[in-house]
């Protein structure tokens, strides 16, 4: 059974839906998005419904996640950033669960679609730009001039900063997409080897598959975390405008 390791990323229309000339057909990725939404909503809402001062297992997990996201926001944006908590938390949970569910064999990794990560990246970056201009007006263009830049360097700095700004949504989108895709390609290749190797040698790539799967769980967490942190950093930059710590690219 020789097939392309990219086979796993192929989508097929399951239910064609084309209202008003726009193709919104249901495919596997869309169904997996629903699964993510349902699972996250169920987990978080049932955890929130418990509302006990001494939490049970589920509430404890939900509170751990909430506390974790709160930590990210407070670290990058400070107390005023808590206004964006619901958005950041939803983003983190959506990406995290999309990454994790994608690791279940037979399911689909929503975040391995470049367009999905691009929507998140452009959405968050766009929000930061909109927020920046609405909070600071024209002064927000000052984000292109790092504090302490001497005047004669401006012609050099502004294009560099402009490129760095434009690279933000692209790197954000590509980082998540590439990590998810690469992980699944490696898993696919290793599993293909395991199958074609047979019993004699196939156990070796199969063992690697298991190890890689464990690694992928970690990567699922890390990439969701990175995406969230960077979104927070961009939002924080826009809200405070050279207010506090320099951001990392």
């Amino acid at each position, binding site marked *: 059974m020789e097939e392309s390791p*990219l*086979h796993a*990323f*192929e*989508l097929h229309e399951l239910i064609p*839906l084309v209202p008003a000339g*726009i*193709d*919104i*057909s*249901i*495919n596997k*990725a*869309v169904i997996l*998005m*629903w699964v*993510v*939404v349902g699972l*996250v*909503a169920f987990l*978080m*809402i049932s*955890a*929130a*419904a418990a*509302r006990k*001062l001494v*939490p049970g297992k589920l*509430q404890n997990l*939900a*509170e751990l996640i*909430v*506390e974790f996201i*709160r930590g990210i926001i407070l670290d990058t944006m400070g107390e005023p950033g808590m206004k964006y*908590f*619901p*958005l950041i*938390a*939803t*983003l983190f*949970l*959506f990406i995290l669960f999309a990454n994790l569910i994608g690791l279940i064999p037979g399911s689909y990794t*929503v975040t*391995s*679609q*470049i*367009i*999905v990560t691009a*929507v*998140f990246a452009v959405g968050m970056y766009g929000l930061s730009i909109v927020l920046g201009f609405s909070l600071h007006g024209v002064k927000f263009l000052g984000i292109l001039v790092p504090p302490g830049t001497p005047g004669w360097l401006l012609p050099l700095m502004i294009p560099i900063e402009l490129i760095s700004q434009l690279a933000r949504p692209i790197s954000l989108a590509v980082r998540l*997409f590439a990590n998810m*895709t690469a992980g699944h390609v490696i898993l696919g290749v290793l599993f293909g080897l395991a199958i074609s190797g047979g019993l004699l040698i196939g156990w070796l790539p199969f063992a690697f598959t298991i190890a890689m799967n464990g690694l992928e769980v970690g990567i699922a967490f890390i990439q969701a975390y990175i995406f969230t942190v960077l979104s927070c950093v961009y939002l924080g930059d826009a809200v405070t405008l050279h207010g506090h710590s320099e951001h990392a690219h």
Partner: protein
Amino acid sequence: MPQFESHFFSSLIFWEILSFGVLFFLLYKYAFPSLLGMLEEREKKIKDSLDQAERHRSEAERKLREYEAKLATAAKDAEALLTQAKERAQRLMEENEQRMTVDAERIKGDATREIEHERRKAVQDIRSQTTDLALMVAEKVVGRALTEADHRRLADEALDALSKTYQSRN
């Protein structure tokens, strides 16, 4: 790569935004307020508990100091009481001793006086009896009676001599 097939872009974008929107709405409305509230409540509770514990601790410390002070006072009081009792006992003992000495002196003096008195009486008795005896002897010897006055004079002379010899012997 299949991910770059733009055929699916429109449906993915649409469903992603819709899914994200639905999830955001659900969590915003039903999950986050309760969870964040819970965390804050717990934080507050822990802070309150710590504050209370701190309060209790300082109160306990204060009470301990109070008790220590009381204990010190009590110890001082007890010592004072003991000293007082000792002094009293000493005084009583001295008084008793003095009184006993005085009593003993008195009893001794009384006894001495009594003995002296008895001795004098005895001497008196002996003297008068001796006189009578001597007279009787003298009457027998002389054969004639002397006057009472003579008797007395003679007897006294004899007795004086006698007592002189007696005293010189003693």
